[in-house]
């Protein structure tokens, strides 16, 4: 196997030439990029609290696409109403391959996103809360949007970034109680057109989720038991047309609706979850766009109290 000039890309040898040509003819769709577990929570992060969430997500698609991502989400409570979020991501993706052909693949950091979330409305009751939280930030161009093989760009599914600083904004809302919870969010990533490379189209996402407690059905009178919850989540994504070297690719936009089923176990300090994702709708302008079959993921979330100086109480 030879190496491309870009160290992040491994391509096959002579047998790969035919595959490269076929791939480059395919639509530059990001349809199977697969989003990390980016459901934006509206739940509070305490002042001085640090929350770290590790995810591992795999994606299986046709034809012959496989990938996985390892996003890490870090949240910090700045003040009671304001939290800072950073989402770092690495991914591996592989396309093509077979008995006679080795696959194209790439492994690199994706664009990280930094945003702040502010709680504009909260209605807290006994064992229930309703919140509305707008958010805003940017995606930073740490990934690659010009990975090439044999002198031509790889499709969007193998690129790992947008090449530009992308404004990101949205809103999340949720109602949660001890018995069940419902939540929704809508976010928009505005992708400016980059001069060179593949420039993905702007992305609109909208998620809705419902969850309920499976165990224990009846809470003990005292103490803090571990909880097992089941969550059902729908993710709608709409991608605008992408650009290659500033030229619009009219057949690269698409719409997808995917369904998640997640099982979670949560304790006072950590939470672990496992889930699967199935596409319900995959509508692409290009007939050759890659289509996702199934995605599976696990995540682990840990909560820290950042080091602090204990302060004296205020005199009443």
């Amino acid at each position, binding site marked *: 196997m030879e190496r491309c000039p870009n160290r992040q890309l491994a391509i096959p040898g002579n047998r790969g030439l035919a595959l490269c040509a076929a791939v480059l003819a395919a639509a530059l769709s990001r349809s199977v990029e697969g989003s990390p577990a980016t459901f934006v929570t509206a*739940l*509070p*992060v*305490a*002042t*001085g*609290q640090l929350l770290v969430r590790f995810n591992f997500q795999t994606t299986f698609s046709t034809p012959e696409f496989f990938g996985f991502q390892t996003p890490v989400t870090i949240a910090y*409570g700045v003040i*009671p*109403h304001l939290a800072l979020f950073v989402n770092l991501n690495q991914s591996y993706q592989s396309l093509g391959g077979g008995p006679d052909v080795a696959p194209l693949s790439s492994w690199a950091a994706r664009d990280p996103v930094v945003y702040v979330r502010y*709680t504009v409305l*909260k209605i*807290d*009751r*006994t*064992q*229930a*809360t309703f919140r509305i939280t707008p958010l805003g930030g940017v995606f930073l161009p740490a990934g690659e949007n010009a990975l090439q093989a044999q002198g031509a760009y790889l499709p969007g599914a193998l690129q790992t970034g947008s090449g530009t600083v992308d404004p990101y904004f949205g809103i999340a809302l949720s109602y*949660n*109680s*001890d018995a069940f919870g419902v939540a929704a969010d809508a976010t928009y990533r505005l992708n400016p057109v980059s001069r060179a490379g593949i420039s993905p189209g702007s992305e609109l996402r909208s998620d809705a989720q419902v969850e309920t407690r499976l165990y224990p059905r009846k*809470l*003990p*009178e*005292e*103490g*803090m*038991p*571990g*909880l097992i919850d089941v969550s059902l989540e729908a993710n709608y994504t709409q991608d605008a047309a992408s650009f290659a070297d500033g030229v619009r690719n009219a057949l690269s936009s698409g719409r997808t609706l995917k369904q998640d089923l997640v099982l979670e176990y*949560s*304790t*006072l*300090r950590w*939470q672990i979850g496992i889930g699967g994702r199935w596409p319900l709708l995959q509508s692409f302008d290009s007939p050759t766009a890659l289509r996702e079959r199934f995605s599976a993921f696990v995540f682990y979330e840990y*909560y820290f*109290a950042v080091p*602090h100086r*204990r*302060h*004296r*109480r*205020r*005199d*009443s």
Partner: protein
Amino acid sequence: MSAAGRMALVLLVALAVRTAAGEEVWRTRAVAKLYGVYSPRGFFNIVVRLKCLESAEWVKLDLKRAQITVDFEPGEEVSKEDLARVQHEAGYRPGPVELFRVTGETVDHSAPGWMRLKSPPPKKTAQRVRMARRQRG
């Protein structure tokens, strides 16, 4: 923990809150009803802020009642506003707080849900040093 062990712990705690002169020492106990907290993660938000409150030593978390019980260091006074501030800084609307003074055998931290907010006192370290010296010599 066995019943005998639990009883021993209760006696130790009871002894610990008595002064050398034999007078009973009181603690302030705060019981706060929480609004908006429905999950273990929400309770951890509260614990994070309680750790910042000087003299808060023990906390008991009750998920079903959405309530915390906080025991402070012996002889320390706290106000309801201190507990309200904890809930506010954790991101929640403060709920009603009740304050009590507890003494002696009523201070039992072996029941389900109690957790220590502070690190164990340095006494343990001193004990380890003494044990290490004995082993050496």
